[in-house]
Structures are given as C-alpha cells and as structure tokens.
C-alpha cells in the first residue's frame, strides 16, 4: 500500500493535560484535515512505521474511528477487529494518537488541565489501537499490554482456525 505519511504530518506533543490547548489550536488551524497525528516523539519512526501507521489509519477510518492509538500501557477491555487493528474502551499511557475529523468538534469541548486520556475515554465511541505498537519512547512501558495482546491474538487464532 502506498505510503502517504511523512514525519511532517506528525504534531510533536505529549498526549497529556498540558497539551489540550495546543491540540485544540491545531484542530482549529487545520479543519480541512482528515486526521491529526499527535506523538511525543517522531524521530524514532522509520519508513516501515510510517507505512504501518498509514495502513492502520485507513483501516480505522473505514470503521468510523474517533481516535486511533499507536500504543498503550494499560487497557481494560480489548477486541481484535482485524489484522493490526484492535478496539479498546479504557486505556492509559499512550504517547501516539490519531484524532479523526469526525471527533474534532468533540475534542474542542475538552477542558484544559483535565486528563486528556480520561476525556477521550468519556467522549469517544470508537477507540482503536494499532498493532504492532508504534515504538516511541521506552518499549518496556508497553511490555505488559503487548504480552497480553499477543496471548489474546493466539487465543482468537486458535478458536477461529
């Protein structure tokens, strides 16, 4: 699949309460965009990552996504939707997130200084997660959730074969 993403498409910000205003400003300045990509780091991403992210964005967009996460340290419930794409409800510890256009107006209602993740959990109907994770920062932070997801993938595969 064609790689349609570049490093310049990524807004380098943390997905934390301190960034609410900056992300809202980015949305206001880019209302025509189909999505905004927020990442704490982008310099660790290689071309393969960009292709993977691009493919996941396309898949999530066709499924009416509000947001797409690139990684998470914790989740409560998760379901595999298709290869490389999961749906989650409650999550914590993501530093890579794609906000889709349909969720822009909702995001603009976020209150500053409140947890960005908690506001997303409360407001978004369709939260997706790409897999494998986008590797930014210390991979060790994701080891528990990665291990669980791998186990769940194997269980699904076992019963669907």
């Amino acid at each position: 699949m064609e790689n349609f993403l570049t490093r310049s498409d990524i807004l380098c910000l943390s997905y934390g309460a301190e960034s609410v205003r900056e992300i809202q400003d980015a949305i206001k300045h880019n209302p025509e965009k189909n999505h905004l990509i927020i990442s704490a780091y982008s310099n660790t991403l290689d071309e393969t990552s960009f292709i993977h992210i691009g493919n996941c964005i396309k898949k999530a967009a066709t499924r009416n996504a509000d947001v797409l996460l690139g990684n998470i340290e914790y989740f409560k419930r998760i379901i595999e939707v298709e290869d490389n794409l999961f749906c989650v409800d409650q999550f914590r510890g993501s530093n890579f997130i794609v906000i889709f256009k349909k969720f822009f107006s909702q995001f603009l209602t976020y209150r500053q200084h409140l947890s960005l993740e908690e506001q997303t959990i409360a407001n978004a109907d369709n939260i997706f997660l790409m897999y494998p994770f986008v590797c930014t920062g210390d991979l060790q932070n994701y080891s528990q959730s990665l291990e669980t997801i791998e186990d769940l993938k194997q269980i699904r595969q076992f019963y669907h074969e």
Partner: protein
Amino acid sequence: MSDFEDIIIPTYIINLKTRKDRLKSIQKEFEERKEFDVRIIEACEHEKGNIGLWKSILKIIRIAQANDDDVILIVEDDHIFTESYHKNSLISNMIDSHAQGADILLGGIGGGSKYVVPITKNRFWIDHFWCTQFVIVYKKFFQEILDVDFGEDDGADNVLSGLTLNKMVFYPFISVQKNFGYSDVPNINNNEDDIETFFKKAEKELSFYHKKYIEFTK
C-alpha cells in the same frame, strides 16, 4: 435450523435434601424442557459448603464416567433460565464448542473474567469465571477434575477456572443464579452482595465485546 430432536443432555442437579424450596424451584425450571435428561443428585453435606459442593461435583463426574456420558450439564439448584435460553442455540453451541476444543461451557457467570475473546456473537472465551450454577462439561475433562487436589479453602469455580484454558460462556447469559436469601456455599469472595447483582454486573461487563463484535467483525 435442526430441532435436534434426538439429542438429550444428561443433566445432574445438585440439591441438599433439606432444601425443598430449591428443589421445587429447580424442578419447575426444567419441567417441559425435554432436551434435558434430569437427575437430582443429593448434595454431599460438609460443614464447609465449598467442600460439599466440590464433593458433589466429583460424585456427578463419577456417575457420568460410569454412564459413559460424552458431555454432561451440572446444575446447582439455584439456577434459573433467562429469556435468552433457546434449545437449538444451546445444543448447536455445545456441538461447536466441543469441535473447537472446549472443556467447559457456561450458561452464565457471576464475574471473575479479566480477558475475553468473542468466538461468536453469542459465545465468548473467558480467562476466568465465578459461579457454577450451569456448567457443561465435556468427557475429555472428566479425569482432570477427578485428579484435582482440592484445598479446604478452594472454591469450585476458581479451581475449575484454573484447570483449563478452554472455557467459554454464553452471551447473553442463558442462566443466572436466583437469590434465595441464603447460600449453602460461600458467596463470591465471601461478599455479601446480592448474587443477582453479580450476574447483572458480569453481563454488563461483557456487553462491550458483544457490541463491538457485531459492529466491527461481522
């Protein structure tokens, strides 16, 4: 869909002989349901209810082995069917679960699961479960149950949960537990909450998987 007229499920109901109210209740649940071959099993009495229940389960497994049953249904006398129960769905899911390697198929749970994988829209793999009021057990799992070293503080649900990865539950639940105002077996984690509340909470927890499965994987 086939009516599975020729399939009758060996069904073993655990009842303490002193609990006439429960016996009456459970008999009413199964009357007119010809798909079940119901046998009332006198519960093994023990000062600790959890041990009495486990001994009763072992008693049933030994009877099932002697009868050469391929699959059995173990029922506690506080089980009640929900509106989601349908004979054809029960039997087709029993057959499919067996083909997929399940050891246990549950009619409903009082909670306990942290991870869930939907197998179909109405049947989920679960990592753990609480409550044993409606448990379908396949023959290949009989001996493993008999071989368990059951501790005096163990619970049948936790022990069965830990004994196999291959366990599934119906969604929506086809079985829940009725609250008789007393319990012969310690409630979930010795919690005093109404047992019916546990089932409602557990079903609500599983609703996320059902909703997203329908929405995204079909």
